[in-house]
């Protein structure tokens, strides 16, 4: 009987132990999957940079990974370090191409970016073909157009890139407002897009300047390209400063209402004037005593 009881205890021990290990293995499965993405940007053909995005997929939920460190290399892992990046609260880290890698960058029309977390290579096949985008304007018979051209670097020369989808329009706070009726345009055999500027009477800045923009987004060969140009095609905006120029209770101290200035200073001068007079009287008492 005693042996049976002992066996029961042993059985219970094994059951709990296996449950414990089962939980651990669940926990390991539950650790989630790390997803790292790299995005290449070339802004106004002058600044090239990369944005790394790190997320954790767990129970079908994507969560940005904060404070994770990655190394990004150009072409060769271990030697051409672009930067070490640490992700922010949004799980993103930014790295600019350093001047020290200029020779390597110029030497080839295509480059591979490699991402490592510690010794582990996470991305090894992110290949970018060097490309640039130009933007110009056209005014024919009063019809304004935007001309954007995409070039790729091939055989040591810039050649037009055809069939590239892009956005051509005006930069507004919320994004790019398309210049014409189409959302996107595709480059022709000359690598160009001509978009008629149909968004007339758009409010610009005080001088009427608006910013035209041509953008290639997440292209599988070229990454993200953007070019901007400022033109006086907008309607000048007059800033109504009347509200702030009033003398009110809510403006700065330089716009205090006259009535308040008069009242406050009358009281302050009246009271402190009297107090100064009284101090003089005390001095008078002192003189009378000495």
């Amino acid at each position, binding site marked *: 009987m005693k042996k049976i009881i002992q066996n029961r205890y042993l059985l219970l021990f094994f059951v709990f132990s296996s449950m414990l290990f089962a939980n651990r293995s669940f926990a390991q499965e539950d650790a989630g999957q790390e997803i790292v993405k790299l995005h290449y940007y070339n802004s106004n053909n002058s600044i090239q940079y990369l944005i790394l995005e790190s997320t954790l997929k767990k129970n079908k939920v994507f969560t940005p990974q904060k404070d994770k460190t990655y190394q990004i290399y150009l072409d060769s892992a271990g030697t051409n370090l672009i930067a070490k990046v640490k992700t922010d609260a949004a799980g993103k880290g930014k790295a600019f191409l350093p001047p020290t890698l200029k020779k390597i960058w110029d030497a080839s029309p295509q480059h591979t970016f490699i991402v490592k977390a510690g010794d582990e290579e996470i991305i090894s096949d992110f290949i970018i073909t060097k490309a640039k985008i130009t933007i110009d304007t056209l005014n024919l018979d009063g019809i304004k157009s935007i001309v954007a051209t995409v070039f790729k670097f091939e055989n040591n020369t810039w050649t037009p890139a055809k069939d590239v989808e892009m956005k051509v329009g005006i930069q507004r706070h919320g994004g790019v407002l398309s210049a014409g009726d189409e959302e996107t345009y595709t480059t022709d055999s000359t690598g160009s897009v001509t978009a008629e500027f149909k968004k007339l009477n758009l409010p610009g800045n005080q001088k009427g300047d608006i910013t035209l923009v041509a953008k290639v987004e997440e292209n599988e060969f070229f990454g993200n390209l953007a070019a901007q140009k400022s033109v006086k095609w907008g309607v000048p905006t007059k800033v109504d400063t009347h509200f702030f120029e009033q003398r009110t209770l809510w403006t700065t101290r330089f716009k205090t209402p006259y009535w308040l200035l008069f009242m406050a200073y009358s009281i302050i001068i009246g*009271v402190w004037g009297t107090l100064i007079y009284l101090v003089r009287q005390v001095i008078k008492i002192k003189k009378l005593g000495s």
Partner: protein
Amino acid sequence: MNTSSNDKQITDDLMPQKFSKSGMIWVGILSTICVIGAYAYYRQLRYGLGVTSMRDYVSWGIYISNFVFFVAISLVGSLITAIFRLANVAWSTPLTRIAEIIAVSAITFASLIIIVDMGRPERLYNLFAHGRLQSPIAWDVIVITTYLFISLFLLYVPLLPDLKIMNQQKNKNSAWQNKIYIFLGSFWKGNSEQVKISDKIINILCIMIIPVAFCIHTVTSWLFATTYRPGWDSTNFGAYFISGAFLVGAGGVIVAMYVFRKHYHLEKYITELHFEKMGRIAVMLSLIYLYFNINEYLVPAFKMKKSEAAHLAELFTGEFSIMFWFAIMVGMIIPIFIMLFKKGRKPLPMFITGIMIVVGAWFKRYLIVTPTLLHPFLPMQNVPDNYKHYFPSWEEWAITMGSLAGALLIVTFFVRIFPIIPIHETITEQNEKDHSK
């Protein structure tokens, strides 16, 4: 007894006395509390306002409650000194200096505690360099400075004849005391010209301090009332604050009267009549303050606007209800019932009542400041749980208690150096009484 022996007796009775053993213990306790408060303030400077429990919602906690309390109790200077003097209330003579020193010490610590609340004291400079005259905070700074100056003036000028008496009793004073008396009043000879100017100064100060005192309390109330929040959005606030300030000030004087009378054996000078009179005044002030409280709570409670309802419910039946009903009952209603009866206006019951009024008033200020901040118009969302509640940290308690102890220390040291009952005025009044007989 002839006049000169009478004068001598009064002078001997009212001269400042060395600390007794109990006095030393009292100073020791207060100093210890001040030192702990100073250490807590060092921690606040070292680690920032994070050591307090104040967060995004309750940004005015116990410090501002204490500030309002100090401002309120300081009003007593204008009540006893100015109003009674202008109204020729002769019996108030022994109480004037008590009232003035309470006013000076309270307003001094009101100024200091507001700097403590700022977190970065060096930034006080910005208030003067970049202050906006449109802001009630700027008005408060101006009016507090003015009130402190007038109160000090009103304490000093009536002290001049007594300083002459002190200077005549050099052998009874210690050397450091004599140095102070000589520095402050050696020029006072008491000639008719000096008396005439001195009377003029006191009269002008008495007239001037009343509107300034009303301003300081009204402006302090406007710090709240000009902010659109449940519990503060009231046109009643100025009068409500002034009436409350008169009451707590009177309560403070009653407590001080009893302590000085008992400790320095001043029964001949602070008589039962003084308690009787102060009792009647305190009843009237309690009733006025109760009236304003009813206005302040009953009117919004009748309407029960949604935003106000949560705030009022917290006060009447919620988290703050014990403190709220304590403040109302202990700070107003029970004192009224005690002081309505003649037996209640005897020294000891009056002393107990005075303490009740002062303690009730302190909690009342806490209730004015904190619950409102915990009931903003927009719901509190996506914030840590400790943002939704407020209980002062030990540093806040230590600094607050340190400031209260500091104010009491000022009064204590003042009594050690100067006569707390005006000697010269008492002698003059006694002589006038004798002559009229």
